[in-house]
């Protein structure tokens, strides 16, 4: 099967055709915002990092910003630097330019201050938008999609309806040769041995177990033993018996296939099929990591209702809670409450979600896009200095 997408110079394919303005440091965020303001199909990243990070965090910040630039949903990129930041804007631009797309770098301290830099940036973005408008959608095999999966604001309907239904859709996309990213390691605790058992190789299994151990250790250092407090008395009252069951309710959204690869946060998968990405469970950091890793589309299940979207990738909101769907109609894309009400099977709900993925990949606008939800938060481990 195919979707209608945009073919890029590096051979990848996008579901959107955006011009992206990336401030390489928080100091140039204001200029970047002014450059993108009022320009349909031009977006900026509200990045506040790029200076003051140490060690691995420097790598994570650069990898995340570069990953957004390289994502095939982006047609062209303008990097806006300040000039004295630790994340070198030219180096960031060079990394993104390797994808073959037009990438320009402007720097406030070299280009005559904020006003002149904004004027220069708006001229460049205007050219990029004019070129982007000449490109048309064409049929692209679904095997070229990387689907990010996420859940947030969960309630009892998440484990019963929306996550299993998304699991059916994930299996369907993988059957088409596509890629599905499962992530949020803290939510894996209790079911990690079950996911590890599905790994293609012992090395992949070991990486999953090590990632869980790392997050568990970090949480305990912060004063929280996740395993001891789960499932909570409220969970048990609701029918959850074991921690395995609770965690499976979350990870089942990635379906039932073999785990083909493990990638660190914000890293692009090289395998097709099911891929595990080691990210936080923080909704916007997780979303940012998956899109930086090349996801061109995301499915996001919720019980209570959560509005976030990505600056460059469509995020499809799915709920199994009818009240949430009605209350937050402006944020919810797909209602699978029929499963909980006994009117729809999980399989039928999954097929409905799969159809929505294909439609949105082909240009159907999501509720989060309509609301202008362009949420962005880079995951890092240490404090800024």
């Amino acid at each position, binding site marked *: 099967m195919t979707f209608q997408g945009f073919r890029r110079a590096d051979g990848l394919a996008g579901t959107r055709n955006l011009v992206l303005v990336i401030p390489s440091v928080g100091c140039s965020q204001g200029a970047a915002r002014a450059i993108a303001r009022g320009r349909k199909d031009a977006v900026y990243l509200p990045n506040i990092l790029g200076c003051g990070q140490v060690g691995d965090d420097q790598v994570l910040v650069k990898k995340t910003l570069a990953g957004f630039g390289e994502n095939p949903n982006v047609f062209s990129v303008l990097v806006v630097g300040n000039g004295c930041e630790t994340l070198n804007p030219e180096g960031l631009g060079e990394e993104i330019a390797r994808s073959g797309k037009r990438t320009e770098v402007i720097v406030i301290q070299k280009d005559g201050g904020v006003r002149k830099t904004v004027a220069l940036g708006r001229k460049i973005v205007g050219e990029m938008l004019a070129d982007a408008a000449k490109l048309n959608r064409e049929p692209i095999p679904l095997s070229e999609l990387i689907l990010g999966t996420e859940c947030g604001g969960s309630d009892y309907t998440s484990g019963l309806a929306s996550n299993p239904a998304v699991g059916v859709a994930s299996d369907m996309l993988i059957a088409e040769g596509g890629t599905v990213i499962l992530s949020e390691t803290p939510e894996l605790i209790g079911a990690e041995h079950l996911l590890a058992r599905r790994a293609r190789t012992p090395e992949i299994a070991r990486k999953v177990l090590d990632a869980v*151990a790392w997050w568990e250790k970090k949480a305990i250092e912060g004063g929280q033993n996740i395993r001891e407090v789960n499932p909570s008395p409220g969970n048990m009252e609701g*029918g959850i018996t*074991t921690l395995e069951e609770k965690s499976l309710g979350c990870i089942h959204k990635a379906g039932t296939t073999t785990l083909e690869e493990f990638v660190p946060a914000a890293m692009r998968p090289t395998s097709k099929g099911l891929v595990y990405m080691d990210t936080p469970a923080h909704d916007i950091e997780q979303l940012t990591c998956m899109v930086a890793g090349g996801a061109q589309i995301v499915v996001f299940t919720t019980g209570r209702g959560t509005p976030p979207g990505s600056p460059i990738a469509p995020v499809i909101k799915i709920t199994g809670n009818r009240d949430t769907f009605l209350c937050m109609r402006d944020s919810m894309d797909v209602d699978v409450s029929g499963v909980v009400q006994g009117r729809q099977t*999980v399989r039928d709900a999954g097929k409905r979600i799969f159809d929505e993925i294909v439609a949105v990949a082909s240009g159907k606008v999501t509720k989060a896009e309509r609301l202008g939800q362009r949420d962005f938060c880079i995951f890092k481990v240490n404090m800024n200095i």
Partner: protein
Amino acid sequence: MAGRIKAIVIHEKDTVAVALEALSAGSEVTVACGEALPQRIKLVSSIPMGHKFALKDHEKGTPVIKYGEPIGTSTSAIAKGEHVHVHNVAGKKEGGAHA
């Protein structure tokens, strides 16, 4: 499909179903999953909404399957149609990383 579905089986391999409403002991419930033929289960206990009941007899010490994966092991024999919860199932408490 005749009438409302009163219980869900999430995966074809599952040995338990989840009640979508409070169900009483002695009542019969039709459950179906995927391409498998629907089966009728006579409940031997009352099942609160969101709780699980067994789709088959479990001997003591056998895996209880939901989402197609073991969610724990039976700590006593569980009859088909019986309530499945903390009184007759235990999970694996320690981390997989340390196993």
